[in-house]
């Protein structure tokens, strides 16, 4: 602290400290602590509050549908009184999504059946009555919700239930995701190591520049676009299948297109592509520092290429490989765009998709937090395991 003040003066030091504090607080402590806290707070979804909430939702949906039907009937009546009757009515507002799949939603909300004026009036009266009862119920339910949610808020308790209630299906997905991420990491390594080695040992500056450019250029493009471009390539009517068609392997017209997307292979491929740079550059950087004479010395002593790599190059490149593996693993374990877009919901889920749905579809932020925390812990364990296996310290990695 004193040293800082001495070198930078009081003003700058205060700024530094403030920035560091802000960083630690906003970037590390607040989100971290909040996630962890939520992860351990169990919300009893089957409890009274939750039930009431669901009922309110249902009541609103029902009311909405009734309103729609009434509006349709009114429109019909007007159309009939107008001279140009028989023209199909476009007046009905198109139905939004919420009705679909909601249990007990009554008759589907499309255009109301054509009724005679008398029936129509009867139906309108019936609807008005129903809406009135519904409104009464909603008011009642909402009043109960207020009181009970207050109680429920009191009942919030810390527990492991967010974790222990994870269904077997989810656990399976969790384990599989870690396995998939590992696959992606290993694949990336297998692809990147030779590339990095060649790039680092090539003597021609021109070749090196071209190689690095080819590697970097795709990264100037947004990740989503890159993923979509792969989808275009892999689709059933995509570029790859067209190519096969042109080569005569398959007949697209006859629907022989191969469905590459929505398979693990496709997801892996796209992810490897998306994260190669994170693997190539750390490895390239470490191999670049290897004295070329060591390669020659090993060869001169009679070593085969395989032995040169396993005994000289890879041990030297270990810190780079560890960094690359950690980054690739973390990114792919947490990746959501690739499995979502390439997987098309057909491919087995990744845990990241599950987390997303916990948050935004099941609307269970606490469980979402618990799931994320589980993933985070798995990743941290992976980091330490990797560092152990590669016998590298934090310092080596920081280099």
């Amino acid at each position, binding site marked *: 602290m004193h040293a800082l003040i001495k070198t930078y003066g009081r003003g700058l030091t205060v700024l530094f400290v403030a920035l560091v504090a802000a960083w630690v607080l906003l970037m590390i402590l607040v989100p971290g602590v909040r996630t962890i806290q939520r992860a351990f707070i169990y919300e009893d979804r089957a409890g009274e509050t939750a039930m009431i909430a669901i009922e309110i939702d249902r009541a609103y949906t029902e009311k909405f549908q009734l309103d729609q039907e009434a509006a349709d009937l009114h429109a019909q009546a007007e159309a009939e009184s107008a001279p140009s009757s028989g023209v199909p009515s476009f007046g009905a507002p198109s139905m939004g999504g919420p009705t679909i799949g909601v249990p007990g939603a009554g008759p589907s909300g499309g255009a109301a059946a054509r009724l005679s004026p008398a029936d129509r009036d009867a139906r309108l009266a019936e609807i008005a009555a129903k809406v009135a009862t519904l409104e009464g119920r909603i008011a009642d339910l909402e009043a109960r919700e207020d009181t009970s949610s207050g109680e429920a808020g009191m009942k919030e308790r810390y527990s492991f239930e967010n974790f222990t209630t994870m269904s077997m299906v989810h656990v399976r997905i969790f384990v599989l995701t870690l396995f998939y991420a590992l696959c992606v990491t290993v694949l990336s390594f297998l692809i990147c190591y030779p590339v990095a080695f060649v790039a680092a040992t090539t003597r021609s500056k021109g070749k090196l520049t071209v190689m690095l450019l080819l590697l970097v250029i795709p990264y100037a493009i947004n990740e989503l676009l890159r993923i979509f471009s792969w989808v275009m390539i892999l689709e059933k009517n995509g570029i790859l299948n067209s190519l096969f068609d042109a080569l005569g392997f398959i007949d697209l017209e006859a629907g022989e297109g191969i469905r590459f997307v929505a398979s693990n292979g496709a997801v892996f491929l796209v992810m490897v592509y998306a994260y190669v740079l994170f693997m190539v550059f750390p490895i390239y950087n470490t191999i670049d520092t290897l*004295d070329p*004479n*060591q390669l*020659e*010395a*090993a*060869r*001169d*002593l*009679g*070593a*085969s290429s395989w*032995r040169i790599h396993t*005994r*000289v190059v890879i*041990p*030297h490149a270990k810190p780079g490989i560890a960094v690359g593996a950690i980054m690739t693993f973390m990114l792919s374990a947490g990746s959501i765009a690739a499995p979502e877009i390439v997987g098309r919901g057909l491919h087995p889920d990744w845990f990241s998709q599950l987390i997303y749905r916990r948050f935004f579809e099941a609307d269970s932020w606490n469980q979402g937090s618990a799931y994320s925390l589980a993933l985070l812990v798995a990743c941290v364990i992976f980091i330490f395991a990797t560092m152990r296996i590669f016998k590298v310290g934090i310092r080596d990695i920081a280099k």
Partner: protein
Amino acid sequence: MAGQDVVLQNVSMVYPNGFTAVHPTDLTIKAGEFFSILGPSGCGKTTILRMISGFLEPSSGTISIGDTVMNGIGPNKRPTALIFQNLALFPLMSVWENIAFGLEARGESKAKRRKRAEELLDLVALTGQGEKKPTELSGGQRQRVAIARALAVEPSVLLLDEPLSALDLKLRQHMRAELKAIQRKTNVTFIYITHDQGEALAMSDRVAVMNEGRIEQVSSAEGIYNRPETAFAATFVGEQNVFRGRVVATEGEGISVETEHGLLHGVNRNALTPGEEALVMVRPEQIELMNGNAMGAAERGLNTLSARLERRDLEGALINLYLRAGDYPVHVNMHNTGETHVPGEQAIALGFHWRHTVMMRPGNLAKERA
């Protein structure tokens, strides 16, 4: 592991950028010989060594080791071992693993490797240091590990690329003796590269002097120093006072050259003929002071020269005199006998025997002197 002959026939190296690093060269290195290649930086020494070790394919010519032509055979398949300018030890392996790496590459069992490593550690006087990492050793010890590592594969030819250049003077002199001893013990052919003439002269059975991609002379250390054959060899190894002139007469090995300091006589090393330009060379230790007794110098076979003293340095056993004769600097060194008298006069008469005076065809002179 007995040494083998190394024969270069018409070997040249043109790099892809068109630069000729080695002009067509014939060279025969005998089995079990300590052979040095001596030359200034950038003359192509490493290039020759890399061609012999197999890392570079010669642009022309053939290289054979023993009776086998080596062209097209990779470095891992040649009976050579290379010691690099920077040693290139494997920093992540222990000393003994370094030494045994060649055996590991051959698939020897760990016990066998271990045993052989211990033997070699004994040979290079590093007994008990096997478990250390190379970085935990001193420069000289690392040097010896590199030698042991190379010897472990029982090469018939050991190639050393300025292996001592990173060491300080004391250690260098010590290692010279060790290298020589190891070479005698193992009887492997050593091809030793250096730009340090002291090293080359002290250790070698024969020395090749190289300049700008050409081998100028191959002979014993003594021959290189006392009977240089080219202007470059003469000036690169040891020191020479050089005068320019024109040949006026030759007779047997004797030759007379007219210079601005009069007629000088010497040995005709390059078969010069009258009318040709010539360089007159004489080493500083071959020049004596006449001390006013120039009478009968010609009868005694001495050339004489008058020069002005500019500076004198006493260097213990030696006295260095720096003089000037017209345009030419003249360096004389003589033994300090305790009674040596250096006149302080303006013009000092110098004398040097014609047998110690060599006349050369003009050519490159060494600019750099190690």
